[in-house]
Structure formats: C-alpha cells, structure tokens
C-alpha cells in the first residue's frame, strides 16, 4: 500500500468522472461524474497528507474536508439550477439546453 496505489485509484476515478461528464446525456449523471472527480481529488489530498508530509501534519485531510464541504455546496446549487432548467426547458438533457448556440 504505497502512495502510488492510491494515486492510481484516484487517477482511475478521475478518468471515469471525466468520462461521465463528457458522455452522459442526463444532467444528474453529469453531477455524479463531478462527484467522482471531487472524490478522486480528496483521495489524493489524504494520500499525500499521509505519505509525503510529516505524520503529525494533517493539513491535507483538512483540505479534503473543505473539499467535501465544497462538494455539498456545489451539489445543492447544481441541483437547484437543474430544477430551474427543467422548469424552463422541460428537459435536463444538456444538448437540448443550447440557448447560447451561435
């Protein structure tokens, strides 16, 4: 269980998250992808905190906690926006919401 283990796991989670964001046709699925990305970041923070910084320094963990806070806030706002979009467009398919189309 070295640092690289965790980094690989986190890299995989990150790529999967990106994949979800890029390909899914449902805004909520995209949100899930974003959550995956955030999780991978937090995991990285915790891992680096464990292995790289001295043991008594747990700043990385605290940053991860802040990351979780951020995720919560983001999720709330995201869903609120989705609801608003749903009311406006009757759909939450991202490719149907294209008011800015040139």
């Amino acid at each position, binding site marked *: 269980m070295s640092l690289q283990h965790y980094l690989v796991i986190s890299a995989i989670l990150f*790529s999967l998250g*990106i994949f979800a964001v890029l*390909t899914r046709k449902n805004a909520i699925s995209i949100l899930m992808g974003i959550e995956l990305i955030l999780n991978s970041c937090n995991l990285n923070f915790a891992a680096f905190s464990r292995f790289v910084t001295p043991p008594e320094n747990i700043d990385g963990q605290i940053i991860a906690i802040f990351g*979780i806070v951020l995720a919560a806030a983001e999720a709330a706002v995201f869903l609120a926006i989705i609801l608003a979009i749903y009311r406006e467009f009757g759909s939450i398919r991202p490719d149907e919401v294209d008011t800015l189309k040139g």
Partner: protein
Amino acid sequence: MEFTLKTFIFYGFALITIASALAVVTVRNIVHAAFALMVTLFGVAGLYVFLQADFLAATQVIVYVGGILVLILFGVMMTSGRLEMRIHIERGQLLLGGGISLALLMLLLTVIANTPKWENLTDDGTAFEPTTKRIGELILNEKFLLPFEVASVLLLVALIGAALISRKEVRD
C-alpha cells in the same frame, strides 16, 4: 510486499471503488447509477480509513452518502417523475469521450509512474492516532480558522442561493 489480511482488504476496497465507479458511468438506469455511486463513496471512505484519516472517512460517509446522494436522488425524482429513467448515449460521443478519458488516464498514470519522488513511499506502519481532536484544534484554533469561516459562509450562500434559484418564480 507481503500479502496480509490488511493488504487483502485494501485491494478489496480498491476493487469495489473502481468497479462501482465504472458502474456509475456505464449503467443506463440513473437510479442504479446513484446506488453505484453510493458504493463508490463507501469505498473511498474505506480507503480513507487505510490512510489513517478516521474523521475524514466518517465525514465522507455522513455528508456524501447521507447528504449529497439523497440530494441527487431527490433531483432524479423531481426531474423525471419516476424512479426509472433510461440514459441515452450516442456512439460517437461515447467513443470520443472514452478516448479523451483514456488519454487522460494514461497521462496521469505516466506521471505517477515517472515521478521518482513518489516511489517507495510505503505505509511505514506508524501508530494510528485519532485525528478528530487535532482537526478540531486546527480548524477552530489555528491556521484554518479563516478558511473554516469562509467555508461556512459559502455554505450559507449556497443554501440561500439554491433555495432562491429553485423556488417557483413569483410573477407580479
């Protein structure tokens, strides 16, 4: 590396995490995807435990599983009206997205593999100390007080903002 029970469990968690994450991005039913996400989050929490981050793990479970996931399910229900909902994926997009993700993954793995600084940083088996107290001190007393306050304000703003955005428009 010895193959002890600990490593076994670690690999188990890693596998669960990755597998369920894969499920999140692949299953067509959005509700299933949400439950898969729940498993992923549990998995990550387990990994936190291995990293001796007990408070973080607990937070992960409580906030993510207890909070965010429920929120997502609510979102699903309020936008589709029914629990089951199919997710359409176009092939071209799928290929392109997969390509880019894969490329990113390869990139990251290359970086991980080629950074000598990160090699041989194994779990040296230092004694586990509960971090909750220390985190409490750091957040409320020491250098993270200001970020903590800012975070609380941010949450408040998000709360009010979300309520404002999602409420039904009141026409004059």
